[in-house]
Each structure stands twice: as structure tokens, then as C-alpha cells.
């Protein structure tokens, strides 16, 4: 359940992104406003070219907006220095990619421990945290496996563990189920959902309505602008009274 009383983990304010200039100018994003709260999973849907992935890369500090603000855990990425952004990306933001992006030469536990080690945590402590994160997600049996010894679904679950190790609580997932069959995709979404239920804030970019349906809120983009969004309704009311009339 999103905790809207507390401060948003991610805030996008009047975000615009223009690629190119002059006659070839493309407005990828036009004035996006979006708050994502702890405990909330937001899905972003829209046709290809609607700006979904641009939104996510800017929210993760991988790209910079043309104008507007990106605020992660109270730090504005648009005014922060490069070092500060790098630190924020290590400490606060977890990114999950369609092709998992685990480091092939490292085991699952080492992959999960890596961002903590890069952040200056001792190798032993980082390893312990990684194993704890894997255990929390029922993945401890994978700890010593290398990526090529795991299925796609297992790799993606490890990638989610890596995205949320330590006290990071923002996970940005770009088509995380794109390379998975529908049942495995579902289990990855169930994990993402449970991490958000445990207090993380998540943004999921997908073109699959069945996966977007795991979110608390679905935001629809078209031509770089939010055209509409769903609000969470009470599931209990769904199959009584009003729903039965349909």
C-alpha cells in the first residue's frame, strides 16, 4: 500500500527532454510530473516512442533533462555534481534492465554485493548483506551460482536483489520481463511487487498490460506527455455490487 503521507522517494517536476535541435528537434518528454511514494509500484505504459524509457533513464540519472527537476530522496539530480549523482546511483537507485546485466564473472552473491563494495562497505559486510538480501527474496540457494548457471528468471530476480541491496529504496525497471516467458515474467513481477509492499518505491516501464496490472498506479504516456493514469481502487468492491452489473 503506497505510503502517501510520507515524502516521495522520486519526484519528477515539469520534466522535458528535447533531442536534437532545429528542424530535427524531437520532444521526447513534455512537462512530466510524477511522484512515487514508498510502498508504491507505478507502471508506465505507452506506445513505442512515447517517452517511457527516456523517463526512466532520466529518473535514474543516466540521462539529463532539458528542463525540469528530478528529485531522488531529497537530492535534485539536475543541480547535483557528478560525484553526488554517482553516489546517489550507488546508494539510492537500483536499476533493472531487460537483459539482466549481471556481471558474468561474478556469482549471484558477488553481483549483489558489488554496489555495496563500490560504496565503501567492507567485502565481508557487503557479502553478508548480499546473502541476507538474497535470503529475504528466497534466492539464497542461488548465492554461489554464476549468471550462466541460472535461468533468465533467476538472473532477473538476482538483479532485483542487487537493485535493492542495502538501504536503497528506489527501483527502476525497464521492461524487466521483456526476455522472459509469461509465467517467469509473472514471478519477477511478484517479487518486485513484494519489495514495494515491503517499503520500496518502484517504477516499471512495460508495454505488457498484464505486467502493468501488478502496479498500484498505471501512468499512460503519449508523445512525451502523461495522458491519463489509473488510481488504485478497492479490490474487495470489484466483484460485488457495481462490478456485477457490468
Amino acid at each position, binding site marked *: 500500500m503506497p505510503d502517501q503521507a510520507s515524502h516521495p522517494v522520486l519526484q519528477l517536476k515539469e520534466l522535458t527532454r528535447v533531442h536534437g535541435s532545429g528542424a530535427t528537434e524531437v520532444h521526447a518528454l513534455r512537462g512530466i510530473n510524477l511522484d512515487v511514494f514508498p510502498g508504491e509500484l507505478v507502471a508506465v*505504459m505507452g*506506445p513505442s516512442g512515447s517517452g517511457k524509457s527516456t523517463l526512466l533513464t532520466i529518473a535514474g540519472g543516466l540521462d539529463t533533462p532539458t528542463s525540469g527537476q528530478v528529485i531522488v530522496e531529497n537530492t535534485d539530480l539536475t543541480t547535483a555534481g557528478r560525484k553526488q549523482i554517482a553516489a546517489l546511483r550507488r546508494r539510492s537507485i537500483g536499476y533493472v534492465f531487460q537483459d539482466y546485466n549481471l556481471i558474468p564473472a561474478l556469482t549471484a552473491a558477488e553481483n549483489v554485493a558489488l554496489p555495496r563494495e563500490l560504496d565503501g562497505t567492507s567485502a565481508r559486510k557487503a557479502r553478508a548483506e548480499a546473502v541476507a538480501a538474497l535470503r529475504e527474496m528466497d534466492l539464497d540457494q542461488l548465492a554461489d551460482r554464476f549468471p550462466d548457471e541460472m535461468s533468465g528468471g533467476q538472473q532477473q530476480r538476482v538483479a532485483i536483489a542487487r537493485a535493492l541491496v542495502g538501504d536503497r529504496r528506489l527501483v527502476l525497471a525497464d521492461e524487466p520481463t521483456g526476455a522472459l516467458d509469461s509465467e517467469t515474467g509473472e514471478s519477477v513481477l*511478484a517479487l518486485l*511487487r513484494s519489495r514495494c509492499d515491503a517499503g520500496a518505491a518502484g517504477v516499471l516501464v512495460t*508495454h505488457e*498490460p*498484464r505486467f*502493468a*496490472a*501488478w*502496479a*498500484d498506479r*498505471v501512468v*499512460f504516456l503519449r508523445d512525451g506527455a502523461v*495522458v*491519463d493514469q*489509473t*488510481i*488504485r*481502487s478497492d*479490490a474487495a468492491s*470489484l*466483484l*460485488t455490487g457495481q462490478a*456485477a452489473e457490468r
Partner: protein
Amino acid sequence: MSIRHGLLALLEPGPRYGSQLRTEFESRTGATWPLNVGQVYTTLNRLERDGMVVQDGEDEAGHALYVITDAGRDELRNWFRSPVDRTSPPRDELAIKLAMAVGAPGIDIRDVIQSQRHHTVQAMQDYTRLKAQATDVSPDNRDDVAWLLVLEQLIFQTEAEARWLDHCEARLVRLSLMAAEKEKRRKKTDGEERSADRRPPGERPATAPQAGLGRSKNR
């Protein structure tokens, strides 16, 4: 019809009375299609008239008990064996609405699509939440398993609708781009012809008739 066969299926294991059938029908389908007890008795009367069930005594509380007959069992087996008919598609309000919205004055069909998409995706979110709650069903609980199947059918159906809406929108965007392109080409060829007409007859380019052909092919 589904209620008729549903009741026969519920009577198959043994005698039941009316409101019991209603409760069992609803718990098997998660109350997705609520029945009122009147519908149950009307259906039982028809089944009785057709020789599929008979009334046979009462339970201790005085409820009239119904029992399935051999003819009823045959009918039920036959129902399970035959596919649900798809030859005459059921009337679909959404398909009719979109068909009517094409070219309707003052209506932006993309808005019609988006308002439906909103509703459909939100229903999917609700069903998905119910499913997340229903996945710890015990595999030997018939009602739990049946409810999960019905719930997933609702998810698949709304998913198909959402995908179809995406497809409609993409299709309309493509078609309007094609129309714009055609219009641009038409203006261009018209312009060329007009400027060609202004030239003295002797200077008319030899390719002009071909350009004319090209245009009519594009129309």
C-alpha cells in the same frame, strides 16, 4: 445454457436443495456471476420439466431436494464434451462503439480508446491483486482452484482487450500518417501539374503523363 449446465454439474455428486446450489455456484466462480435464488428455482423447474432432474424428498430442515437423472447425466457429459460455440460471436459493445466512433463528428476516437483502456487496465489491476491473494490456494480445494481459473480468465480477457485497444490506436495512427502522406503527395503532384500547365506546350516535360498515372495509382 451455462446456469442450467452449471446446476447439473453441481447436482452430479448428490442431491442438493435450491439455495445450496446457489451458494455452491457462487463459491466455485468467486461470485463473478451472482445468481439469485429465483433464477435457481426457475432453472430447476425447467430441468425438471425436461426430465433432467427430479424432486426427491426433503432434508431435515424441510428443503426440497433435487436429484440428477440419467438423462441429466447424459446432457452434462455432452456439455463437457462439446466446445462452446464461437460461430456467432456475441455482441460486443466495445467493438460496436469503436466501429461507430470511426469518423463520428466531434468524437476523438483516441479519447474513446483511452477511456476504455483506463477502465480495462484498472480492472486488470484489481483482478491481479485478487489473484495475488488467491495464489496460496490449497490444490485439493475444488472451490479455490475453480475460483483461480475464473479469475485468470478475467485477467486474460481484459489483457486481450487492452492489447486490442493498443493495436487499434497504433493502427489509427498509421492510417492517419498514410492519409497525410497521400495528401502531401497529391498536393505536390497538383502543384507540379499546375506549374507544367503554365509552360508553353512545346516545353512540357515528356514525363508528365507518367506523373499523372502515378497520381491516380496513389489515390
